[in-house]
Structures are given as C-alpha cells and as structure tokens.
C-alpha cells in the first residue's frame, strides 16, 4: 500500500488489464471526476459542506440576489445625482455619495449586475475555447499540439494584466472588449490542463481496450476522453472565477472596462483614489470585490478538494 493515511483508503480498482472481456475493461474507465462512477462501494462518502463552504455560498447567493433584484433593493438610481457631491455616509445614503452625488450603495448593488455575469462569461468562454483547443492538441497531437502549445507559451510570456491591458486598449475600452481581452489571456491555462489530462489517459489501457472493441476515435473522444478531461478543467474554472472578478475590476480601474457611468466596482475605486478625505468612495466598492472574490476562491478550493483526489485534505 502506498503512504497510508494520506489518501482515504479506497480499495484499489482492479487494473483494467486483468479483465478478460474488453467490454468490462471499458466499463471501469476511471470516471472518478465529477463523481460519475456512482454507487460503487469504493466511493468516498459524501462529506457535509463545511462552514466555510456555507459562508462562501451564502456570500455568492447574497450578491446574486443583489444583482437580480437590484431595481427593487437599491434605494436610488445608480446613475442619477441623488444627493450632495461627495456626501459622507448618512441615514439617507448609507455608504455616502460620490463626486457626482450618486448613491454609492445603489451603485454597488447595481455593480453586481456587471461583475457576476461578466466573470462567469469570461470563465465560460475561456473554458470552452481553451478546453476545446487543449482537447484537440492532446488528442490529435503532432503539429496541432505543437502550434497550440507555442501559442500558449506566447500568452504566458506576458503577465496577464499587462497583456489584457494591451489588448483592451488596442480594441478600444468597452465592456465587451474587456471580456474579450480577459478571455484571450486566460484560455491557455485551460488548454494546458485539458491537454495534459488527455495525454495522461490517451495511452491508458481502457482506451486501448475500447479501440480493440472497435470504438471509433470520435466515440472514444466523446465517451472516455472528454469526461476525464472535464474534471480538471472544472476545478480550474472554479479557481479562476475569483481571478476573473479581480482582473475585470483591475481593467476597469485602469479605465479599460465598462464605460462610465456604468457602476463597475473597479472604476468606482479609481474614482475615489484621488481624494482620501472621501474614503467611502473607494472603501465600500473594494469591500464588495473582496467579499465576492473571497467567496469564489473559497468555493474554488472546496471544488478542487472534492474533485481532485490528489489534493484531498487541503493540499
């Protein structure tokens, strides 16, 4: 047995090679990811979500409700002047107003309508594009693989925010261009992870067994390769959600995100950065970003610990 206690003792799955019947071999293809291998006695018991996970889900739920119900929750119009210029937090304006007399609380609530969907769109697009390319690179190999990997090298040659800045500046500042820029800088991570997941199972016995059974390459790709590559990609995506929120806010802070007067949290921080006596202008939107990113990161860690058997016990 290998290093007892580090992993939960799961009875070893019989090596597919011992099966005389290739059908049986194909049937035990390791679909541990996503818990697709349901109900077998070796399954790790379903753990109850920890307190941290509950907190994370609650925070995300809170912001989701804010985003959906903003028109009913927000006390003021986020784009209109509804008070004095740069008024301190008060009973009327809980978080104060900004330089244009707009209610900061309302702007933060409406800001959730930007950050949450945009972060999800960025991650979903990067996952789809990077995942597909990584799948092709790993499965086809050779020239396709080489070209794609060199392309990822190129993107990795830039610190993410610098390249995102250059791209969104070149396309012109707008919400869609910021999303485009962030997708462009983040797809390679997914491509690499999916590619190595594919490579690690491409030579696996159960695939050979499937081939001997006369399973075509596309069927094999769909039935065996994809399900096994999905797990690592999903883990990565959940870890990257928080990062997407942060990067989007950073681009906005640089003036390359959604155009004013959109209530983007990063841009709101930038607006308050020049005058510290009006601290509330920057502090509150920052807390909003912090709470959402922290919640996403906590959730990402949980997803990873659950889906990635190697990282059990909080690797």
């Amino acid at each position, binding site marked *: *047995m290998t290093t007892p*206690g580090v992993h939960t003792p*799961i*009875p070893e799955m019989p090596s597919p090679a011992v099966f005389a019947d290739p059908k049986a071999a194909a049937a035990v293809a390791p679909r541990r990811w996503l818990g697709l291998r349901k109900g077998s*006695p070796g399954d790790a*018991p379903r*753990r109850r979500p920890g307190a941290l996970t509950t907190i994370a889900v609650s925070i995300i739920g809170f912001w989701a409700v804010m985003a959906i119900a903003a028109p009913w929750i927000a006390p003021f119009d986020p784009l209109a002047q509804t008070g004095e210029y740069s008024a301190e937090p008060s009973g009327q304006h809980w978080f104060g107003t900004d330089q244009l007399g707009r209610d900061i609380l309302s702007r933060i609530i409406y800001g959730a309508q930007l950050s949450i969907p945009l972060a999800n769109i960025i991650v979903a697009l990067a996952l789809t594009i990077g995942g597909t390319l990584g799948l092709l690179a790993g499965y086809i190999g050779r020239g396709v693989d080489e070209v794609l990997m060199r392309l990822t090298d190129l993107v990795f040659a830039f610190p993410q925010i610098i390249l995102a800045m250059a791209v969104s500046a070149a396309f012109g500042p707008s919400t869609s261009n910021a999303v485009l820029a962030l997708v462009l800088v983040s797809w390679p991570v997914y491509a690499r992870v999916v590619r190595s997941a594919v490579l690690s199972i491409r030579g696996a016995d159960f695939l050979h067994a499937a081939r001997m059974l006369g399973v075509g390459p596309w069927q094999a790709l769909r039935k065996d390769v994809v399900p096994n590559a999905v797990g690592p990609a999903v883990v990565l995506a959940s870890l990257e959600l928080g990062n997407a929120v942060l990067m989007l806010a950073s681009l906005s802070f640089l003036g390359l995100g959604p155009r004013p007067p959109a209530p983007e949290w990063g841009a709101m921080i930038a607006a308050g950065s020049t005058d510290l006596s009006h601290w509330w202008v920057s502090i509150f939107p920052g807390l909003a970003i912090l709470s959402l990113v922290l919640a996403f990161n906590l959730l990402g860690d949980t997803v990873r610990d659950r889906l990635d058997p190697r990282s059990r016990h909080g690797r």
Partner: protein
Amino acid sequence: MTDLLLDIKDLTVALPGPNGDVPIIRGVDLQVAPGEIVGIAGESGSGKSLTAQTLLGLLPAGAKVDGSITFAGRELIGNNDKAWRSVRGSGIAMVFQDSSSALHPMLTVGVQLTEHMRAVLRLDRRAARQRAIELLEQVRIPHPEKALKSYPHQFSGGMRQRIAIAIALACKPKLLIADEPTTALDVTVQAGILALLDQLRRDNDLAVLFITHDLGVLASLAQRSYVFYAGQVMESGPTGVVLTAPNHPYTSALLNARPHGLGHTGTLKAIKGIPVAAGSAPVGCPFAPRCDYVQDICLVRPPLVMTSPGRLLACVVAPDLTGSHDLSVADLSGAELSGAELSVSPNPGGER
C-alpha cells in the same frame, strides 16, 4: 523465549479516515530473534508496510496504535520523539522500496551516508567518512571515494539500492526492515541485492524483517515467514514448510496463483474476488468471502493458534490442503538463487 530481538504483541494501528478511524493493522503478533531473517508476505493493502512504519514511529499524524512492541527489551509504543530517535538508525533501520525516491535527490551520497553517523554515533567528519567508505565497499560500490561526491541519480537502480542499504547499516542497527527492497529492480539485479542482504546479515549479526509480495523471494531468503491478509496474520512458520505445505487456504491460493518454474504446465488459478483493504474487512475471517472452504463458523474471527511447534494458523476450518498444489522450495527459489550466485562475487558491478 526471552532472547527475542523484536516482539510484537496484538498490534493494532488505525488511521483517521473521513468517517472516523479505520483499523489497518488488526491484532498482529510477530517475533524476530537476533540474526534471523523473517519474511512478511502479503498483497498490497495487507498492512505490511504500515507495520514497518509503526516499528520506526513514522506513522502519519492521527494514527492510533495499540498493543505492544518490545525491541531489545524496551517498549516502543508510547515513545516520545527523543526515545524514537534512540531506536531509529542504531536499533532499527529501514530500506525502502524505491531507491530513487528514498534518497534525497539534491544531497550527495556522502552527506546522506555520514550525516546520521555524526548525529547518532557522534563520529567526527573523518571517522564518518572512513566508515562511509568501508560501508560502500561492503555493499560493493566501485570507487567509494568518487561515489561519496556523486548524487543518487548518477547511479543505476541496483547501485542506488546498495547505497540505501549502506545508509541503513551505517549506525550498526540490530534489525533491518527491508520493505520490498527489490520490487523495483530487474530480476538479475534483484538476486544480487538479496545475496548481499544475506551476506551482510551474517557478517554483522543483523536481523532482517523482509517485507515482500513475492513468494519466490521469500523462499530464497527468509527463515521464517508470516502471511498477512487485511491487516492480520493468516499463518506463520518456517518458510519452507509454510510455502510447501500451507495450512491456510489463503496461502494455498496465493501459491496456486503464481506461475512456478520453467516448463510449468498446470493451470494458474486466480483467487476469486478482490482483495479487501484492511479497513473494510468483514467481521469474521477476512478471507472468508474469497475462500473455497468457507463455512458458517468463519463469521467469527479465528484466533491465531499453534498447530505444531513454531507454526501458527488463523483458520478454524483448517482444511486438508495437501495435494492442492505441487511445489517444492526448489521450485520457488531455484531460479533466484542461481541468479544470485551468477552475479555476486566475481563482478560486483555486473548488474548495471
């Protein structure tokens, strides 16, 4: 028996799992006399490696240990860090399965061979170096001075395992635990290492606890053997007897499942079912679900009882197994022994 070197009594080790503690070793009794080679045989998951780690106090955090381990007259269970340190290296030493991961890749052989001599035996730099060279000569590493300055990756697997053995022997232990030391090696290299271990045992008055899943290796080396299954001892006794006339259905099944000798014509008989991990073993005899001779009484855990002098058996049914397999010790170990003679004395470097 008062002159035992190692006496394990009713050892239980439980590791923390997601649903509470999982017992991996469940009431093991095991004895080693000074200078004796004792084998432990078992499939992966039978708890044999964990037994080795328990003997060195290297259990993972949260492990719960029960029972008694007496080594050279001292109780080991309940040792604090300092007491463990006085046992490790100078009392009990260990050789790991894979020498490529058991040697630090970034420290020279010299450092790894001398550091504990200086810490444990309190040798000065020159004395430690001198002894290191002697040790390397003992395990037949060519050019010991050069080897001291080299890194582990510069040696072949067999050479690395010899270095690992030298490191284990550096502080003159009385007991050497060898945890599948030849599993990762080619057969010819394996034979050389086994012969070396036997030689070193005789030269240094060393007892060896040899852990393996390979019955052939066991037959060629061990004087007495213990057969483990799911964290329990199934049977024990002199190796030759246990392997040629097993009393336990599990041992018998193991023997029938391995191809023996050239020109073997009989059928290989796989053991039905899947080995249980110790943690999820059934209440009674752990082998019962896979046993051909299972009876209702097997739902009660069979005690380990003496069947003849020096032989213990944990099987209530105790079927007559004579004739269910047809081997001799020579069948089991013949190939390995001749291989050993071939590669050892004239050309120590021949295994590379």
